């Protein structure tokens, strides 16, 4: 038996290794080990008061701090039957769009594109292709600006609070964001050009179950109560409060993260799943961009998640502009958050974080202190699907050379945009 071990995932070090065992040309075993930081942080919030939970859990990840903050707030509000104002919903969604623009731009241009073009890093790619790197940095900066202006801080937003919003943006701030987003419209088109120019990544085809929130209102799509799983024309709905019937988490000896399976099958979450579950979003500029990318649904290639992220860059910028216009038209009111009356009970929220569904579920005591917390990240939800796609890629690879297999598997891992040991980032000396 020969064994291919990929300890470092696409320039990523730490827990997140892939082991492939080959018996002759047959794939005997594929194991993916992903270390999941979020789970380690759950005990840190036990006993904490409801208003301390979101600021603590936002620190699970710097890139997804808005998603963790807002999902946490929504779970808490669900537990206490709190309903926020339409203005708060709009401001929260704007924050979410900012995070998505930042995250997708970083992933596509500074992390994924170097893989396609065989550069060891974005720094190396910048020497030959500065325009693509600068485009990514410009879009990332736009996403940052939205989050900083609306959230009140560059990372870990302080304005999003239980029941409402702290300090709303001024008219001048909204006008500044609108100007940045106008440039962002042109940049999101340029992003499609860059993605369309990349070499094809056609080395993994597989029937895939996609799971994402169903969007009842295509205009505001970041949280919801219904998850839809789609596979080969079959559809199933799971309600947020019953999320465990979707995830069916299982501990496996080879993985730090639990694996999720729906009706016995792994499922994929993220941009590609969102577009598959909600294809009606693909109109206007997105439909044009789809053709330029040669992107079709249903997709059977996990690498298409990169194309789906590029399409979402367009819809994120468009939607952020719409929200700003709406806020400017209506005028931003200085609202106080809805008063919170803690009570014993459980609340659950699911949002569509940049890399897929994010679940927070809390049980509170009568004083509003956490008794139990369950945080399931998109990377954990994707772990079983990633493992399946690694296996398919090896099975479909005519070559048995370790370097070829390794490169392909790393590109698939990257396409999932995983969050691996995202709470740790220690530097090392050469």
């Amino acid at each position: 038996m020969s064994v291919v071990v990929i300890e470092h995932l696409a320039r990523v070090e730490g827990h997140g290794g892939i082991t492939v065992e080959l018996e002759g040309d047959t794939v005997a075993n594929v194991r993916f080990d992903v270390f999941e930081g979020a789970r380690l942080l759950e005990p840190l919030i036990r006993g904490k008061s409801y208003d301390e939970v979101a600021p603590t859990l936002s620190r699970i990840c710097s890139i997804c701090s808005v998603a963790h903050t807002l999902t946490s707030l929504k779970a808490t509000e669900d537990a206490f039957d709190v309903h926020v104002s339409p203005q708060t919903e709009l401001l929260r969604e704007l924050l979410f769009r900012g995070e998505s623009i930042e995250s997708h731009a970083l992933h596509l241009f500074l992390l994924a594109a170097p893989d396609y073009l065989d550069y060891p890093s974005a720094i190396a790619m910048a020497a030959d292709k500065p325009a693509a790197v600068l485009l990514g940095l410009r879009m990332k900066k736009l996403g940052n600006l939205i989050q900083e202006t609306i959230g009140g801080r560059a990372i870990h937003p302080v304005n999003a609070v239980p029941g409402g919003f702290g300090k709303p943006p001024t008219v001048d701030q909204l006008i500044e964001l609108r100007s940045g987003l106008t440039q962002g419209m042109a940049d999101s088109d340029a992003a499609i050009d860059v993605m369309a120019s990349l070499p094809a990544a056609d080395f993994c085809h597989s029937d895939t179950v996609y799971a994402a929130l169903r969007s009842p209102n295509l205009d505001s799509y970041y949280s919801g109560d219904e998850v839809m799983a789609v596979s080969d024309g079959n559809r199933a709905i799971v309600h947020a409060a019953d999320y465990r019937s979707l995830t069916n988490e299982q501990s496996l000896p080879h993985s730090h993260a639990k694996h999720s399976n729906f009706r016995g099958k792994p499922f994929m979450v993220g941009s590609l799943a969102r577009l598959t579950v909600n294809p009606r979003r693909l109109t206007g500029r997105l439909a044009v961009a789809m053709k330029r990318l040669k992107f079709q649904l249903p997709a059977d290639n996990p690498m298409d998640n990169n194309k789906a992220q590029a399409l979402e860059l367009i819809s994120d910028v468009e939607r952020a502009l719409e929200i700003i216009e709406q806020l400017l038209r209506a005028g931003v009111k200085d609202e106080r958050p809805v008063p919170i009356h803690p009570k014993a009970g459980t609340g659950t929220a699911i949002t569509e974080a940049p890399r897929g569904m994010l679940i927070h579920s809390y049980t509170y005591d009568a004083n509003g202190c956490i008794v139990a917390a369950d945080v399931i990240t998109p990377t954990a939800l994707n772990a079983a699907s990633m493992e399946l796609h690694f296996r398919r890629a090896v099975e479909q690879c005519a070559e048995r050379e370790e370097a070829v297999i390794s490169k392909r598997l790393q590109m698939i891992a990257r396409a999932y945009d995983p969050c691996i040991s995202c709470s740790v980032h220690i530097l090392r000396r050469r």
Partner: protein
Amino acid sequence: MKPRLVIGLGNPLMGDEGAGWYAVSRLAGDPRLPEDVETIWGGTDLLRYAGQIEGRSRVILVDAIESAAPPGTVTVFEDCAELEERQTNAHELSAAQAMRLLQMMMPVRFTLLGVAIWSATAGNALSPAVEARMPAILDRVLEELGWNSSK
């Protein structure tokens, strides 16, 4: 030109991983901090601060490093080429990569004060070893900003 900036990187929920975060959050309230110095302590993604770094000639970073030196020892890196580019997570550039990328875009000089750490596991406090060294770490950051301990 904007004033000098000190950025503390790290995750305060991962023990000593958050050494830079803890150091700069305390520095911000230190009466010895020169008035013309601004401070930020946030998360682990340096690139997120591109907007704040733009227009400054000097930025000092405080961050956790893996080192054979005793926990809490501060090592000064004037050139980020001395640091490995390897990332420890999948969707964020390492601070060393981010420094290089930012220097391609803007004329900024980075000085990294790397704090040797004891461990990086879930916990909302520094290890006793790094905590005990925190006054000396703050002195070292302030020295970098022109404060003289013999005064």
